[in-house]
Structures are given as structure tokens and as C-alpha cells.
């Protein structure tokens, strides 16, 4: 049970007191950007409407990291952007206050209380997440309730919580029904509210700064890691979060890289290299992505020609489809441009963005999408990311931008122009 600071302030070396302390003055002047209360109320209304439709009494949403997750339902419902584990949970009953369950108590939980919008923050008591969830469900009188668990990822893997946490719930509530709510999170999020779009725009602005830092750092003698480090620093210094910095260098004279390197290495940049990259940065839990090749000195003529004749016109063609009313099949069809020019590409041409990568996915030979998202609509956010690859499979020049679809068309949240940058 929680202990008020005034009662335990002189016995903080007691584990129970420290772990469960609340009402401290700690971190009182920390400053966080937050969504408005109205925005959070909108989210709860959306979720509760779906709960009512499906007869769900209570939803449990987990956090990240998990594959293809960046906080997922936990961040969306609590405002907490701490990516320390799948096992961070928000419990939202049909009525009443939500509860956030975090890993650590003590000072960490007090910091989380400052950063999150949920006032009922409970520590896991050393990892006993299942028990803490169970206690809240009992308080809510849901021992025989219908409990929905949101998936942690946008890929419908069904991953929602560590096995033993799930088993604890099954064992403690034999009369309750537990159901993994596949695809529901995406349904709630695929059309963004104005505040959500503003956050994605901020993420885009942070990405522009990260890319500018990349241009500054990309010099002969620097390593791929140096470039990644400068990019990440610029993103974090502006209050952004790094989801990923993918960057790899290869010689334009004898290239051997179809896409950036997910683990930038100690390879030293040389004159004539090209840096293939993709960046993802978050603001207030929402991410934007971008990618644009950067040449270290003038590239080999064949690479310049590849850009001028294939990469850039292919991009311009696809970008012209980023507007409401366009069917996903039309974008897929436009993606055949690369084959028509005698080249190829990575399979993926476009994907949706919830808080991170999500559906729909348009591949060269397959579209994965729900019925409600097969036509572009205002409020959608998509990452257009064709990666034109040479016919011999040796070089890909990835270009990507995150687009917001609005009534008037669509726009990239990054202002960095699409061009073959030469530093």
C-alpha cells in the first residue's frame, strides 16, 4: 500500500516505505510536454466506446520494448514514454480511473507520476506485475469480468505480456474471460487527432535537425557510428526520442548495400562513399521517419545516373499519390516504375504509422490492410519509403518521408528536400 511522504520521509531506507512512497517533492520542477487533458479524454472515450461494443469490462495495455512497439497502448493511454519493457501496463476500466503499473517504485515511480497523465501509478513490487494487476481487478470487482488485453505490436503477433504475467491472471481469475484484442489499437489510432498530428510534425522537425547533424558529421575519416552519434545527439537535445538511426556507408564505385545498416559499424567513411540511411524520431510518443542518401564527395557517375533516372522520378511519382481518395492498389501499381526502368526495389513501398510502423503495408506483390484503410483519408499518417535497388542487387538508395494526409492533399512532416545530398 502507498505511504505518504510525510509519514515515511525519515525512514526511506526501509524497502517497503521507499518503494511505495507517494506525495514526495521529488522532481517537482521537471518539465514535460504533454497532450491536453481533452486529448487524453478523447482517447479514453474512443477506447471505451469499443469496449462497450465488444462487451469488455476492462482493458490492459502493455508497453515496450517489444518487436515493432514503441510504447503502444501503454504510452497512448498514459503519456508515459519510458521504453524499458513490455511489462508496463495501463489498466482502463469501462468506468473509473485508469491505473499505470510501472517496474520500479521509489524515486522512479515518483518521476513517472510527474511525466504521465495517470495519477494512480503503482510499482510492480520487484516484478510482481501479475499480482499488482490482479489487485486492481479485484478492486474493480472484475473477478468474473471480461478482460481485454491489447496487443503490444502492430503486426498481429498476439504478443501482449510475458507468459508468467498472463498465467498469473488466468490462475487468479478462473471465472474471468481474458481476450487478446487483435488489431484494436490500430483501429483506434489510424486516424489521428489534431494534437497527435502536431506531435508527429514535431517529430518531423526533430528529424530535420537530426539529418542536418548527419550532413555535418558525414566526412572522410568519420565512422558510421560517428554519424549515428551526431544524429542521435541532435534528436535528443531537442527533446526528441530516438527510435532508430539506421545508417551504412558503401563505396559508390563498388557498392554492396541495398539499405542502411541497422547496426552502424566502425567502418571509416571515404571520399566517394554514399551513406544510406533511415531515421525515426519520436515526440511525445509519436514517431516520424525519413531517409535520404548522402554522398561523401561526388558519387560515381553510375550512382548519379541511378538517382536522376530512377530514384528521384520514382519518388516523385509515388509522392504524387499521397492525397485523399487514392486506393492502395494505385500506389502499388505506381511502385512498378522501378521494374519498368530495369531496376528493382525492396518489397515494401509504404506503411502506415500509428505511434510507429503499422498497417497498411504496400509491397510490390502484396497489400496488407484492413478494409477501413484501403483508401487514403484525411488524418492518416503514412511513411512512403521506396528503396530503389540496382538490377544487380548491389545498391539501394532509400528515400522515405512521413506524410500526413489532409483534406487538401498530403504533406511531408520533414522539410528536408528530396535530393542527392553531396557533402
Amino acid at each position, binding site marked *: 500500500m502507498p505511504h505518504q511522504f510525510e509519514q515515511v520521509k525519515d525512514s526511506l*531506507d526501509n524497502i517497503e516505505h521507499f518503494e511505495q512512497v507517494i506525495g514526495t517533492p521529488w522532481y517537482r520542477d521537471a518539465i514535460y510536454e504533454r497532450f491536453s487533458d481533452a486529448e487524453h479524454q478523447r482517447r479514453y472515450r474512443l477506447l471505451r466506446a469499443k469496449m462497450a461494443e465488444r462487451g469488455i469490462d476492462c482493458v490492459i495495455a502493455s508497453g515496450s520494448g517489444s518487436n515493432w512497439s514503441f510504447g503502444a497502448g501503454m504510452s497512448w493511454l498514459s503519456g508515459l514514454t519510458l521504453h524499458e519493457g513490455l511489462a508496463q501496463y495501463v489498466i482502463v476500466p469501462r468506468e473509473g480511473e485508469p491505473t499505470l503499473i510501472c517496474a520500479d517504485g521509489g524515486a522512479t515511480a515518483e518521476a513517472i507520476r510527474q511525466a504521465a497523465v495517470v495519477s494512480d501509478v503503482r510499482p510492480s513490487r520487484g516484478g510482481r506485475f501479475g499480482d499488482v494487476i490482479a489487485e486492481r481487478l479485484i478492486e474493480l470487482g472484475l473477478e468474473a469480468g471480461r478482460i481485454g488485453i491489447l496487443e503490444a505490436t502492430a503486426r498481429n503477433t498476439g504478443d501482449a505480456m510475458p507468459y508468467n504475467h498472463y498465467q498469473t491472471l488466468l490462475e487468479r481469475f478462473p471465472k474471468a474471460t481474458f481476450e487478446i484484442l487483435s488489431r484494436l489499437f490500430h483501429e483506434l489510432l489510424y486516424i489521428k487527432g489534431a494534437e497527435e498530428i502536431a506531435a508527429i510534425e514535431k517529430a518531423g522537425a526533430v528529424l530535420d535537425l537530426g539529418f542536418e547533424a548527419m550532413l555535418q558529421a558525414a566526412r572522410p575519416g568519420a565512422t558510421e557510428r560517428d554519424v549515428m552519434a551526431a544524429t542521435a545527439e541532435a534528436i535528443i537535445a531537442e527533446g526528441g526520442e530516438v527510435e532508430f538511426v539506421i545508417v551504412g556507408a558503401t563505396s559508390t564505385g563498388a557498392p554492396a548495400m541495398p539499405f542502411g545498416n541497422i547496426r552502424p559499424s566502425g567502418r571509416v567513411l571515404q571520399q566517394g562513399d554514399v551513406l544510406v540511411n533511415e531515421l525515426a524520431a519520436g515526440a511525445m510518443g509519436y514517431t516520424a521517419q525519413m531517409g535520404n542518401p548522402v554522398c561523401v564527395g561526388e558519387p560515381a557517375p553510375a550512382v548519379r545516373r541511378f538517382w536522376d533516372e530512377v530514384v528521384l522520378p520514382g519518388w516523385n511519382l509515388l509522392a504524387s499519390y499521397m492525397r485523399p481518395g487514392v486506393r492502395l492498389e494505385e500506389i502499388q501499381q505506381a511502385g512498378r516504375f522501378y521494374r519498368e526502368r530495369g531496376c528493382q526495389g525492396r518489397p515494401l513501398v509504404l506503411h502506415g504509422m500509428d505511434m510507429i510502423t503499422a498497417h497498411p503495408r504496400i509491397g510490390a506483390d502484396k497489400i496488407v490492410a484492413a478494409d477501413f484503410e484501403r483508401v487514403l483519408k484525411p488524418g492518416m499518417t503514412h511513411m512512403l519509403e521506396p528503396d530503389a535497388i540496382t538490377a544487380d542487387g548491389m545498391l539501394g538508395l532509400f528515400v522515405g518521408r512521413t506524410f500526413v494526409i489532409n483534406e487538401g492533399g498530403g504533406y511531408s512532416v520533414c522539410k528536408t528536400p528530396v535530393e542527392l545530398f553531396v557533402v
Partner: protein
Amino acid sequence: MRLNDFSRDFDKLDNEEIYANIHNTPWYHDAVYELFSEAEFERRRSLMRRAMAERGYDCLIVPGGQSNWSQGAGMTWLSGLIDTRGMAQFVVLAREGEPLLVYGMGGSHAEVVRRTVSVKDVWAASRGRFADRIVEWIQERGLERGRIGILECISGSPPEFPPQAQVGALEAGLPDATIEFAPGLFHELAYLKSDEEIEAIAKAGVLAVLALKALIARAAPGVTEHALAAAATRVILAGGGRPDFIRVGSTSGASPAIVSANPIPSCRKLGTGDLILAEVSAGFMGVTAQVGNPVCVGNVAPALRKFWNEAAQPGFSELESLLKPGVSLESIRRAGSFYRERGCQCAPLLLHGLDIAASSPWVYVERWQSEPYEERLKSGMIVVLKPNAIAPDGGWGMRVSRTYAITEQGHQRLTDYPLELTATSHA
């Protein structure tokens, strides 16, 4: 399932099935990584296989991280893969033969991974269905009726196991197997470090200290907490490491109100005389090291100086003097009473072990918690000493942390930042 050879399929990369399972490409051939030696990985696999034989397992499924208090866990230890994307990444090890690594992404991502790990058999999980390849691999070896252990993603009590959907798929795919959880095994194998591991932790320690220094160099009035975190991040990444965590909190030195670093650095701007509490955990080659120290922006408030001189610094030194082989955890716990004797208090945790990230043993002011084999310090153990002295009124404190290898002679400080109340020159 099959892998597609680049020499045959190089011109069909826009086909999703071909691209996802492409291998033997020339891509990333000139990427440069620091890796443990094959002998080191063989040592680890041998240790694991000996434990399998003792406990009667035919096969072990070893998940990764990230999860709370995890940085890859057994998966990183066995394969060298440094990717904290999720718990559902698996190394599968039978009693004999090459292990399997099932990674979340295919295509070029998997080809990068193949250049950074010791495991030759790397497969992409198709759309997150990790269990499909694991089941197939186990069946190929005739172990579908065998005894199969699943390790935890984090050591500790209680442990944390892979996601329920992945375990459920394994159970469904292997109905005749005996599938059991095997908690505690990884820690038992990893708590004593090899020379190569200690060398890597020392490098992680150097990165952590450089990151702390970069953070301090950036600290000036008007600079935000997250700008300090950014400076530290840059140093770690440029040095080939990965941040495990960078915690930065700040408060007025005249009326302080934090006890330890903020896990979510904020937009708060520093002012002259502020107290900064910073903790950095840097990863390198799949191991980590931690360092934490208080920093004052320019002027040091007299109360802070007094607290440092009379409690935080001498308390830490007293505890540090106990770090040598043969010392019991109980002795360390008792030494934690120093803070009470000086009229102040201390957050509960004094010391923890370090497998890849924080692990057993745990020494608190009131009690300690460990496995039986680690109740006394031994040469080869890695520990983080991190007492968090707190003022009598509970309103503020100073955590100091350093990482140590226990040696035959005593200890080696692996995050060797001076034990001082640092004051920046900016004011």
C-alpha cells in the same frame, strides 16, 4: 522454410518471400565490429550444455531483451546479438551441433545480424511468428518429444518469460515435448566473468565515464536535462557502444528536491548552483557498466558540500573498502548503517550484481538477496556499488555509483571517475 541464395535471387529482391530469406549476400562486407572471440562463445556454449546435461534438457530456448532490467540476457550472451528490440528473439541450443538464432527482421537486416553474431544459422521470423522456425528446427533434430527448457528474459525473483503468444505457439507446435521454464540458469553461468568479458566491461566502463564527462561538459545555465542526455548518448554511440540508460535530474542547489537521477530527463533548464544527479549505463559488446555522480553547476551550496563531505563520500568509501573476495553480503549490508550513524539515511539499495544488466546479488540496508553460491564476493564477479545517501528530511539525496570487478587482490574499478562532488566551471 528455406533460405534464398543471393547468387540465384539477386534480381528478385522485390519479392517479399525471397527478400525476407535472402542470404550469402555481399552486403555490409566491410562493416567493422568488435566481437568476442569464437573461443569465448564456445566457452559459453560449453557451460550452457554442461548445465543442460546436468538438468536433463535436450534443448534450450533462450530469449532476449529488452525487458525491464534486461539488455539481451541469454540471447546476447550466447549469440553476440545486440538488439534490444524485444523479448521475442531467440537462440535455440541443442546438446550438440550449431545453435539457431531467430531474429525479428529479414532481408538486409538479417544480413547485418549475420555479420555481428557467432551463430551461423540465422533466420528471420516471418511476421513475428518466431515459434514456427523454432518448432521446425526442433523437429529436424528429432527432439519433438524431448525435454525443452525456456530461459527467462530477466533473472531475478520473480523472473520474466517471453510473451504469452510465443510460448503458446511453442506449446501448440510441440505437443509431445515436455516444455519447462528454466529460471536461474543464465545467472548461474554468467555471474563469474571470463577475462574477455571483464575486458569488455572495462571498455563499457570507459565509455560510461566519457559519457558522464561529456554530460558534465555540457552542463551550464540554460541547458536542458535532455541536452545533457544527448551529449552522453553521442559519446557512447560514437565509441561503438549502446546506452543502456542515461538518467539525468536537476534541482536547485539552494532548495534541492531530488534523491536520485531522473529516468525521464525533462525540459527543465539548469540554473547556476543547481545540483545534477546523473547515472549512465553504457553497453559495449553485449555487456554494460554503470557510473553515477552528483554535479553542481558552478557554485556548490554549503549544505551540499557538507552532505558530500560528511555522508555521501565517506559512506561510499567505506563500502568500497569492503569489495574484495571473501567478504560476505551481510558485511556490506551492515556497513550501510554508516548513513544512519551520521544522522542521515539512504535509499534501500546499496549494491547489485551485473550479468548483462543489473542482476543478483542485491544488497539492501535491511537485507540481502542472492543465490547460495554468491553470498560472499568472489574473484570474477562484477558488482555495482550505488548507495544513495538521503538527507534526514527525505527531500533530497546524492547517489554515487561505480562498477567493479572483484579480483584476487581486491577490486578493480571499471568506471573510474574521481570520487568528488564535481562542480562545473560554468556559472
